[in-house]
């Protein structure tokens, strides 16, 4: 029963394919709803096994609260993205069944990444998620932008995963095991100085693969192109899904395998965090395409999240353990960023426009979407009363607690810079005149999803206690960092 969420997702992924294969046109209309049913069942199954802490398949697969947290996140994201892609895909592709099947498998890959506790599972699940993401990115085959995005995404992904694989082979070589905990034991028991050298180099190679998924600088170059060219619901998925589970593996490796080398990787991650958020925000300032703008914004967001890992300290009972900050941030970011992308999808569905200039006069054409843009952008910038503020509060708090004053200060300065480019969109929407003032019709499903995400962003801000509890439960399995 411990792998029931994965089994459900795998069965539904194939079911969608079979229905697409043998069903009539009318039956195929139901495919997105079959997919949603699969996600809801997987979500329910995750809640059903809530509280388990087991290691299965010879220690390769860890079903613990930490992984269940990410499985909840994956199924929530999957459900919302399927619901907004129904209207988007209509008229853009005739092969919807294939899309939903591949998408279900990418959510399956996310749940597997969350549970990976061995180098082998890490590699397999990352590749699984990568391949499904490449296919989704290039799904609009006749669209030149879509397949160019897929090619660039694919080449970057293939290179970084090869680098990561080499790092994994070195880790295996010096520790003699593929299991994350056993590797930690091997590192703790060795006195050989060459092991220490490799133990510093190999994780840096592995970081290439994870940094690619999370879009950390300097492994971020694919992100703007892939985000711009991919079908917009897929862009929304790429901005939250791979990033979240990439963090899951990064946190797991850092906290279970490499705690004894913490003094070495913390400065490295601090530097990466600083350049990631600064570069993301500065380049975002001069973007004219909203999808590219959100791409750079999501790169910067990854930098903020990394601050939580830099400030990690699991000793004592402080509310700022760093780890809980990352989890809270990810959860808040999920709804915020999905919400922002659903706004983009709403406009793109009706007008096909994705440039910020096209948003002029949005407040008269689609007042609901324009208003929600404000909420999501406030949250992305970390201004209260929004979910994003809660997330930033906890990661910056952890950095301050651990004495990373400069890092926290740079984080705050970056948040202020980000206000400028978010405000540029708001300015166009509220203070410029529209060329074509006709109202924009938003489909009911998209309206519903906008309402849900906006409500969650505000709810997390005014009543964050359940989220705090969720984060606290999810990190319970990590021991005290030595």
């Amino acid at each position: 029963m411990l792998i029931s969420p994965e089994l459900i997702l795998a069965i539904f992924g194939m079911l969608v394919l079979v229905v697409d294969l043998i069903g009539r046109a009318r039956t195929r209309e139901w495919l997105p709803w079959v997919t949603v049913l699969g996600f809801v069942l997987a979500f329910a199954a995750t809640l059903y096994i809530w509280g388990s802490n087991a290691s299965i398949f010879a220690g390769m697969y860890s079903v613990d609260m930490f992984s269940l947290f990410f499985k909840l996140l994956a199924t929530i994201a999957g459900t919302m993205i399927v619901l907004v892609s129904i209207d988007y895909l209509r008229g853009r592709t005739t092969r919807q069944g294939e899309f939903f099947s591949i998408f279900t498998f990418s959510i399956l890959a996310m749940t597997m990444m969350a549970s990976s506790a061995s180098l082998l599972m890490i590699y397999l699940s990352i590749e699984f998620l990568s391949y499904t993401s490449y296919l989704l990115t290039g799904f609009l085959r006749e669209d030149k932008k879509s397949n160019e995005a897929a090619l660039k995404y694919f080449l970057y992904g293939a290179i970084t995963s090869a680098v990561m694989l080499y790092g994994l082979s070195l880790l295996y070589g010096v520790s003699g095991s593929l299991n994350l905990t056993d590797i930690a034991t091997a590192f703790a028991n060795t006195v050989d100085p060459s092991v220490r050298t490799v133990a510093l180099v190999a994780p840096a190679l592995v970081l290439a693969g994870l940094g690619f998924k999370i879009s950390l600088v300097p492994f971020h170059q694919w992100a703007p192109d892939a985000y711009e060219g991919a079908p917009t619901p897929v862009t929304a998925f790429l901005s939250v899904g791979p990033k979240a589970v990439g963090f899951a593996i990064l946190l797991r490796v850092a906290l279970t395998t490499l705690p004894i080398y913490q003094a070495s990787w913390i400065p490295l991650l601090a530097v990466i965090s600083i350049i990631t958020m600064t570069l993301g925000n500065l380049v975002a300032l001069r973007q004219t395409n909203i999808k590219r703008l959100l791409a750079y914004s999501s790169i910067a967001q990854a930098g903020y999240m990394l601050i939580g890992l830099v400030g990690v300290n699991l000793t004592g009972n402080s509310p700022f353990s760093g780890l809980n900050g990352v989890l809270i941030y990810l959860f808040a970011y999920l709804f915020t960023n999905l919400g922002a992308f659903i706004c983009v999808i709403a406009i793109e569905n009706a007008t096909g426009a994705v440039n910020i200039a096209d948003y002029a006069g949005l407040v008269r054409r689609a007042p609901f979407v324009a208003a929600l843009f404000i909420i999501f952008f406030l949250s992305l910038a970390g201004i209260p009363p929004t979910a994003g503020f809660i997330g930033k509060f906890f990661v910056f708090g952890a950095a301050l607690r651990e004495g990373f004053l400069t890092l926290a200060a740079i984080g705050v300065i970056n948040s202020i810079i980000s206000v400028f480019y978010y405000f540029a969109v708001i300015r166009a929407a509220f203070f410029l005149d529209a060329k074509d003032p006709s109202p924009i019709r938003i489909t009911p499903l998209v309206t519903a999803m906008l309402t849900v995400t906006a409500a969650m962003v505000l709810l997390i801000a005014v009543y964050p206690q359940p989220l705090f509890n969720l984060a606290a439960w999810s990190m319970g399995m990590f021991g005290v960092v030595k």
Partner: protein
Amino acid sequence: MLTVNHFILLSAILFCLGAVGVLIRRNPLVMFMSIELMLNAANLAFVAFSRYLNNLDGQIFVFLILTVAAAEVAVGLAIIVAMFRARENVDVDEVNELKG
């Protein structure tokens, strides 16, 4: 006498050759082949370590890498074919609809 160090050295050389190939070539198919070289460097390292450590895990890993690499070829070629159909050209430097 060949020791594990020789194999690791060879795999490091292969890996660097692959990495250089990826960086300097601009045809996606050739870049692709270079990536395969990098993967096989890792395979060699895994097998050598596995033999050295007397632990079969590394060899099982290689089995799975082989199939993953095949899947990678399938996905990559599919993307390249789709691209070629859309624009009759696959040179990476001339693929520039997306920039900013």
